[in-house]
Each structure stands twice: as structure tokens, then as C-alpha cells.
């Protein structure tokens, strides 16, 4: 049978045809019902989609937890969706989905404020209220700022300058992703502040840990080794400060020589604070950030506020907030953690 092969090749194609078709439908089917329900009643009284920078990020998992708590209090239909990676357009499909499923509001921490702008505009055109949190974008109704840029810069620089005293010295900044808009804003503000008010302090270098443990660790190592008279490192993102502390704890020769502070999660930093490697670091409560964003979203959809300066609303247990210039709501000043309180927080 000299065409046996071709025959079975066709039979093979046939089975592939059926199988792929069946598989894709099945796979979609298996996955679909769990979330399908959110869609059906999403058009109800209130519905909110929270889009973090990426899934699996500790900081945003904490903020989502706060958002969920607030949504439960308010009786909002709540969903948290997001990408697994932080590419600039990776959040776009989730905005589109929120528009289509008739969500009343979106709360988003944009990886790339420019890239999501068109779709956020489309959302606003479709009547969806847009709340930016953690990172601002141009296309939103309101921005929930964890702390003002100046507030964070001031807080971190104050901690550092207090430690260094009048003698001052050389410091370095270890940031996260090189393209993270909010981090870059803080770094710029800190640089400006030090130039203006602390001539005794020089910034030797700004390095980037790229939100990856290993890279941040190596970057911290690079800073401490390559800058001989390094006195302090300011690490304004949670991965960098943790890994800087980690490198310090692994390397006794720098302990007491280099002082590390930054914005960190108490759960991650507790070990280093209790062991005395880190004295102080700052942050706000990310759960509160999500909580506030949810209340703001609800206020927007209820029509209580429109995002104008001077609008006022109440955010449950956090109390009253007012919308400031440029439609910003500030969560509060940076909170400073040290040995005395670091154990009290779960995030």
C-alpha cells in the first residue's frame, strides 16, 4: 500500500482537527465558569475591577486585600485581575475587559502610564470611573497617592540625614525598575532635595534592582563594593531595600559602615530590624491604599465626588479625605517602622 502513510497522515490531521477544537473549547470551558458569574451580575449596583501592576507581587497583593475588604464593606462586586508580567501593554486587555463587562469603576496601578492611557480614556468615555493608585496616569478621574512625591522624598532624606548628621557623606540610591514612573519621580525629588538642602550629602550613583531579588542583591553588592566611603543607601522600593538589607546581613564587614533605609514591607524587613541591621525604614499601609482606592471609586460612582479639588468623602475606618490639587487624594504621611513597631504589621 504505497499510500498508507498519506492516508494515516490525513487521519492524523483529522484527529488533530477534532482534538484541537475540542481542547480549546474544553480548556476555555473549564476555566470560564469560575469567573463567568462576575460578568453576569457585574452590571449591578456597584462593581469594581482592581488591576495591580502584576499578579504575585507582595505589595499589590496587600493592597488588593485592603481593596477587597472595602468592597465587602460597601457591598461592591469586586474582581482582581492583572497580568503576570510587567510589560507596558500587559494591563490593556484587563482594562478592555472591565469596559466590556460593564464595570462601574477601575482601580489601576499602571506599569506604564502612557501605554494604558488610550484604553483608560476609552473606559472613561464608556462611563467607567478610573481610579489610579500607587502610580499616577494622565487618564483618570482621581489618583490615590500613598504619600506625595515630596512627602516620600522628604521622609527618606530626613531619615538619612538624621543618621549621617552634619558630617554628611556619600550615599547611593538603589531603585527598582528603571522605567517605573513613581520610583523615578521619587528618585528625582530626593536628588533635588539633597542638592537644595543637604550640601553635605553627595549621591554617588543611582542603581536599579529591576524588581528581581537576585539583581537587587547584586546591585547592592556593587554599590557597597565600588563606593569606598559609602555611608548610606536609600532604596525606595520594597525589593531593593530588602535585598540591600539582606546583603548587609550576609556581609558583616559593611555592617555599621553602610546604613540602609528605604520603603519596605514590615513582614519582609522584620528579621533585619530585630537583628539590628536596619534601624528604620518607611512605608504606608498598602492595605489602606487599596481600601482608600475602593472607597474613592465608590464615591465616584455614587456621584458623591467628581474628582474636583475640594471634593470630600468618607473612607470607612480611615475617616474623611479631601481631593487635593490635580485630583490627588493623599493617604497620609509616610509611616516609619523601627524595632518597636515592626512586629505589629502583617503585610
Amino acid at each position, binding site marked *: *500500500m*504505497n499510500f*498508507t*502513510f*498519506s*492516508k*494515516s*497522515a*490525513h487521519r*492524523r*490531521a483529522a*484527529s*488533530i*482537527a477534532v*482534538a*484541537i*477544537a475540542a*481542547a*480549546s*473549547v474544553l*480548556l*476555555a*470551558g473549564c*476555566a*470560564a*465558569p*469560575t*469567573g*463567568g458569574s*462576575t*460578568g453576569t451580575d457585574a452590571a449591578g449596583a456597584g462593581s469594581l475591577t482592581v488591576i495591580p501592576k502584576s*499578579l*504575585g507581587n507582595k505589595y499589590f497583593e496587600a493592597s488588593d486585600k485592603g481593596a477587597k475588604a472595602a468592597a465587602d464593606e460597601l457591598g461592591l462586586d469586586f*474582581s*482582581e*485581575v*492583572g*497580568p*503576570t508580567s510587567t*510589560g*507596558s*501593554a*500587559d494591563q*490593556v*486587555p484587563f482594562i*478592555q*475587559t472591565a*469596559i*466590556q*463587562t*460593564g464595570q462601574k469603576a477601575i482601580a489601576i496601578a499602571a506599569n*506604564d502610564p*502612557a*501605554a494604558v*492611557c*488610550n484604553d483608560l480614556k476609552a473606559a472613561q468615555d464608556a462611563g467607567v470611573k478610573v481610579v489610579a493608585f500607587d502610580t499616577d496616569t494622565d487618564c483618570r478621574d482621581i489618583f490615590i497617592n500613598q504619600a506625595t512625591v515630596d512627602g516620600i522624598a522628604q521622609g527618606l532624606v530626613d531619615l538619612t540625614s538624621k543618621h549621617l548628621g552634619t558630617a554628611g557623606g556619600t550615599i547611593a540610591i538603589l531603585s527598582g525598575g*528603571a*522605567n517605573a514612573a513613581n520610583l*523615578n519621580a521619587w528618585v528625582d525629588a530626593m536628588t533635588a532635595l539633597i542638592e537644595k538642602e543637604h550640601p553635605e550629602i553627595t549621591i554617588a550613583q543611582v542603581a*536599579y534592582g529591576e524588581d528581581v531579588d537576585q539583581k537587587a542583591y547584586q546591585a547592592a553588592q556593587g554599590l557597597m563594593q565600588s563606593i569606598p566611603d559609602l555611608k548610606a543607601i536609600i532604596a525606595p522600593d520594597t525589593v531593593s531595600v530588602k535585598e540591600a538589607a539582606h546583603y548587609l546581613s550576609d556581609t558583616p564587614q559593611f555592617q555599621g559602615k553602610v546604613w540602609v533605609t528605604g520603603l519596605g514591607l514590615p513582614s519582609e524587613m522584620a528579621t533585619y530590624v530585630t537583628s539590628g541591621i536596619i534601624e528604620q525604614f518607611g512605608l504606608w499601609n498598602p492595605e489602606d491604599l487599596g481600601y482608600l482606592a475602593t472607597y474613592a471609586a465608590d464615591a465616584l460612582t455614587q456621584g458623591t465626588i467628581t474628582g474636583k479639588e475640594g471634593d470630600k468623602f468618607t473612607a470607612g475606618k480611615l475617616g474623611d479625605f479631601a481631593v487635593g490639587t490635580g485630583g490627588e487624594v493623599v493617604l497620609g504621611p509616610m509611616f516609619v517602622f523601627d524595632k518597636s513597631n515592626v512586629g505589629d504589621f502583617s503585610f
Partner: protein
Amino acid sequence: MRADTVTITTNAVGSAAAQYRRHSHPLWRRMLLRTETAIVLAIILLIIFAITTVPYFAQPYTYLTMILNSAPILLMLLPVTLIIITGDIDLSVGSVVGFSSAIFGLSFHAGVPLPLAAGVAVVGGGLVGLLNGVLVTVVGLPSLAVTIGTLALFRGIAVGLLGTTAITGFPSEVTQFIGAPLFVGAPVPMVTVAIIVVAIGFAVLLHLTPFGRGVFAIGLSSETAAFSGVRVNRTRLILFVLSGLVASATGVYYTLQYSNAIGTNGLGFELQVVTAIVLGGVSIWGGRGSILGALAGGVLIATLNKTLQLAGIGSDTISIVTGATLIFSVVVAGIAGFISRRRRSKASVIAAGVEKHRAIPNPKSVPSNH
């Protein structure tokens, strides 16, 4: 005259020729039982399933955004399909998107007019494609290793060039035009035209030109191709340049679509491109596949993503489903292949012996003086 009179008389040839069948199988079987058909069928079934069970799916906006989101992949997979059919691979396309995005953004930032900046970026992409091609063809390095290297290299250059800056502020009339529907209420965006035009271009090139025959021949057997007058290395070089050009044009498009030139644009696209192509029935060993199949593979993934997203599924599950679909499609092919291989190994052994009884036509087999 010459070769025309070779062997038996023309009459006999004519009747013998008429006896050959054009195809081993009837038309319906050839049309229905092929991977492309399977994928298209899967897309249709999936859309029907989604329309009936996933709320909000049946809206023009779904299709509009689906195409918008997958446009870069659908564009980039076209030349890469040809490359894979020749048996090579280009893993650097995602990085070329970032590279072209960086050049485009920097040129624009430096005050170069937008069209010119786009031109510079596309030419730059052609040049890095040429670099890939030269390393693969002139130097003779394996394309997998070369493009894994240039994947890192081009991305590194893009990230290094732009540093921490993200160049935004592209004219909004341009960026909005790019995402706008073809006409008011149409379920397809502007870029669809570009995809269709480029896809038709590549489909014609691959399936309807001598060049395309050469592409297939290289994948089937590059030695045979060389002995048949196919300019093997030139063809491969051209394909790598085309891949660079299309990827960089995609980079320009992507930059404008999201109004943002940063070094990480297009990160990880290479794997999505290869996934779509392989899902579309293009053999990773080369020699088999079609533009239609590869495009359908891309559309199937886009549809699957859209369905799951609308159903509120997170990208973690989507990632699993994408991987599982890919594995599933090759596993089914593999199992079928496993079975057919067992038949084939038997069949090929006996083919020669048995064809004597089966082959049509069967003119006098051996010249004989009896």
C-alpha cells in the same frame, strides 16, 4: 525536438499520463483534514461557545480589541513563518521590536519628523535582521544559537539606549488613529488593513512564487534545494532581513499604539510568535506549513485570551491554557504520528515490493526482447 522524444511514443505517454491521479485523496478530504482547517474550526467553535456562554463577548468591541491586542504578534509571525518553514528560527523578533521602538523614540525625541523617524527605525530593524542573516548564512552558525544571542543583544541595546527614559508624547491624532475602528461601528481597527495586506503579501510570496517554492524546498532538504538551483543562503538571508523589517515596523506601530517608546517593548513576543506559528501547524523541522495556518494559530490564541479575560480569568490561568493548548496540539499530532510512524515504517519497507501490484499506471515495466 531534443528531450521530447525520450522513451516511448507520445501517444503512450499521453495515455499513461492521463492515468495518474492528481491527488491521492478526494477534495473534501484534503480540504477538511488539515491542520489549518482544524484551527479555523477550533476558532469558530470557540467563538460560538464564547458568544453563547460568556457574557459581553458578542460585541464589536470584543473583536476590535482582540485584533488590536494581537496585531503585533499577527504581523511578526508572518516572516517568521517563512523562516521556520526553511528550518531556521528567529527568536530575536521581540527584541527587534524593542530596538526599533528605542530608535524610533529617540529619533522622534531628537526632533526628527515622525514618518522619517519611523523610516529610520524600520531601516535599523532591517540592518539587525541582516546581522542575524549574515551570521546564519555567511558565517554558517545555527540560527537558534545566533538568535538567542541577538535576543539578548538587541534587547540590551534597546534598554541601554533609552535608559530610564520613556519617550511619550507622540502626536495624539496619530496614536488615536491607529487604534480607531476602520469606520464608525466597525468591529475591526485600522491595523487590520495592514495585517491583511502584509499577510496577503507573504502568502503570495510563500505559496505562489518560485521564491516560495524555494523556501519550502530549503526546509524539505536544503541540499536538494541547492542542487535544484535555489539560492539557499540568499533566500535565508532575505528572510532574516524581512523578519527584521517587519518586526521593526511592528515596533513603530506598537510604540504609536501605546504612545510609549521604552526598551522593554515587545518583551517575550518571540515566544508568543513561535507558539502561534507552531499551533498553526507549521512544522518546526521545516518544509511544511502555511501563512493561513500560522495566522489562524495567532487568532486562536487571541480568541482564547479574550474569552478567558472576559470570563474573568486571570493571566495565570491564561498562561497555563496557552501552554496546554500548545502541548495538546503537538501531543495529538505526536500520538497520531506515533501510530502512523508504526504504519509507515512497515509501509516503506514494503512500498517498493507492493507497488508493483498497486501502482497505476503500470506500463511495461522492463524492456525485454521477448
